[in-house]
């Protein structure tokens, strides 16, 4: 009995130490976002601000006109992009799973092949194509190339293949068309899969750095990650502002995670091996 409790305490010590290692950078950044610059430079190891201040947040929102714009750009691109992904990925997945049409098999292989292609190869030609379309430095130039995702088409297909056919047949007997069945019966039942997809697609878009860096050239068109990097260049020593901006940037994803937590882990193990 005693041996077990010793073993348990060792495990707890390991877990707690690593939890501290994980949390410390966030706590440090969070506390710095509530400190004045003087305090940051003199007492920067104090996790609790001695003179708690909201000035940094006031500054980035009120006196930094671009910050609100970047936040808006990020929200716009992520929300529209996620909505389009949900719609198109599930439609494509459903078609691949249920509707028989010529070339279905080769299209499925195509989706699998797309999964394997590294992004660097398509990066340069995509830039030239967007350039020729005149879509550089525009919202659609950022949203449209990313409005489908092979990983989630594949995931949705796996989901719909295992979906009970009887439910759809019953709906069709009751007079619903194929499209009606899909939107009124099938999609509502796919909620867990859609929830997992929402988190992953939103996070990927929200946190994406390289694509907006390449596509957007005007400062006013930057999304938050690119804007933040720019910010770093301007306020090179004012880490209080940079940390406040970083915290604002992180909050939406944390809220989304808290909200969809259950589906998140499920979605991960789906992506893993099962």
């Amino acid at each position, binding site marked *: 009995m005693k041996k077990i409790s010793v*073993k348990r305490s060792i495990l*707890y010590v*390991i*877990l707690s130490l*690593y939890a501290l290692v*994980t*949390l410390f*950078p*966030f706590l*440090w*950044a969070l506390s*710095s976002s509530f400190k004045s610059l003087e305090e940051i*430079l003199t007492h*920067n*190891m104090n996790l609790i601000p001695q003179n708690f201040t909201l000035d940094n947040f006031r500054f980035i929102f009120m006196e930094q006109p671009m910050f609100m714009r970047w936040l808006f750009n990020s929200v716009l691109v992520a929300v529209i992009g996620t909505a389009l992904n949900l719609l198109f990925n599930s439609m*494509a997945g459903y078609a*691949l799973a249920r509707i028989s*049409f010529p070339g279905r098999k080769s*299209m499925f292989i*195509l*989706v699998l092949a797309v999964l394997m*292609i*590294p992004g*660097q*190869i*398509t990066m*340069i*030609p995509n*830039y*030239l*194509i967007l*350039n*020729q379309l005149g879509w550089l430095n525009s919202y659609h130039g950022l949203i*449209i190339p990313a409005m*489908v995702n*092979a990983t989630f*088409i594949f995931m949705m297909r796996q989901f719909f293949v295992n979906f009970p056919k009887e439910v759809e047949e019953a709906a069709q007997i009751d007079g619903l068309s194929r499209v009606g069945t899909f939107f009124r019966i099938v999609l509502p039942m796919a909620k867990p899969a859609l929830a997992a997809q929402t988190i992953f697609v939103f996070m990927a878009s*929200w*946190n994406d*750095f*390289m694509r907006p*860096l*390449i596509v957007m050239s005007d400062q006013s068109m930057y999304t938050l*990650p690119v804007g*933040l*990097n720019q910010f*770093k*260049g301007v306020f090179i020593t004012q*880490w209080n502002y*940079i*940390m406040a901006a*970083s915290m604002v*940037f*992180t909050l939406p*994803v944390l809220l989304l*995670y808290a909200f969809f937590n259950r589906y998140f882990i499920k979605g*991960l*193990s789906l992506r*893993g*091996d099962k």
Partner: protein
Amino acid sequence: MTPTLFTIGVFVLLPIIYAIFLSFHQVELLGGTNLEFVGFDNFARMIDDYRAGIALWNTFQYVIIVVPTQTLLALVLAATLNAGLKGEKFFRIVYFLPTLTSSAVLTLIFMWMYNPEGAFNQFLDLFGLPTYNWINDPNVALFAIMIMNIWATAPFFMVIYLAALQDIPDSLYEAAELDGAGPFQKFRYITVPQLRPITSFVVIMGIIGTFQLFDQSYIFSGGSGGPSNSTLTVVLLIYQYAFDGIGRMGYAAALAFALAFIILIATVIQRKLSKEETIY
């Protein structure tokens, strides 16, 4: 299906063909796009490009150190978390924070901790260890990025391991306990071998991810790959050549193919190795 096909067609299939085409051309972006066929010149150029050599060597060091470290850390964390302790959920949520946070934010937080008076140096100082100018010293800059990314990625793989650990039958552990095996022996002779297919998956994902390192070195060095090219990675180099506006896009496309080829070879080697491992 139509919008999907359109998007994949225009933004994935067409670009691949276009990329092959580009890699054999010199590209000028003056007003329109001017192309000049140069055959295999772009590929031949890589041999003389000393910065490509540096980028490849940096990336290679990064992969060799980061992939095994983060895999081992993920495995140990998952096994510890799986021991049936109370508060497992709490630790899971805490450990997951870095995975949720954007690379841009993480890099900025770490850059700040790495500054000469920052948390890292104060911590080292506390134990009387030598401190470094992490960001501006070419000898440690890449190492600083490694530490940050191992910290950020290991928990993601930990979750994958956790899911797989649930599938190992309890009877195996019970049998081992009857034979008198301790916790480390159980870990070494049951957990590790049972998880081999997942480890293979984690390592391949790790290889693919680490070879593509970009955001962190870009932000860390302000896009230059400095100090003294010490944080220059292959993808950062491709980016620099492609968008510096002096007509090296074709060469950058050729480099991208070289990188894809290297990643492919690395994953094939990994597959071979992990199969041979099953001998003992």
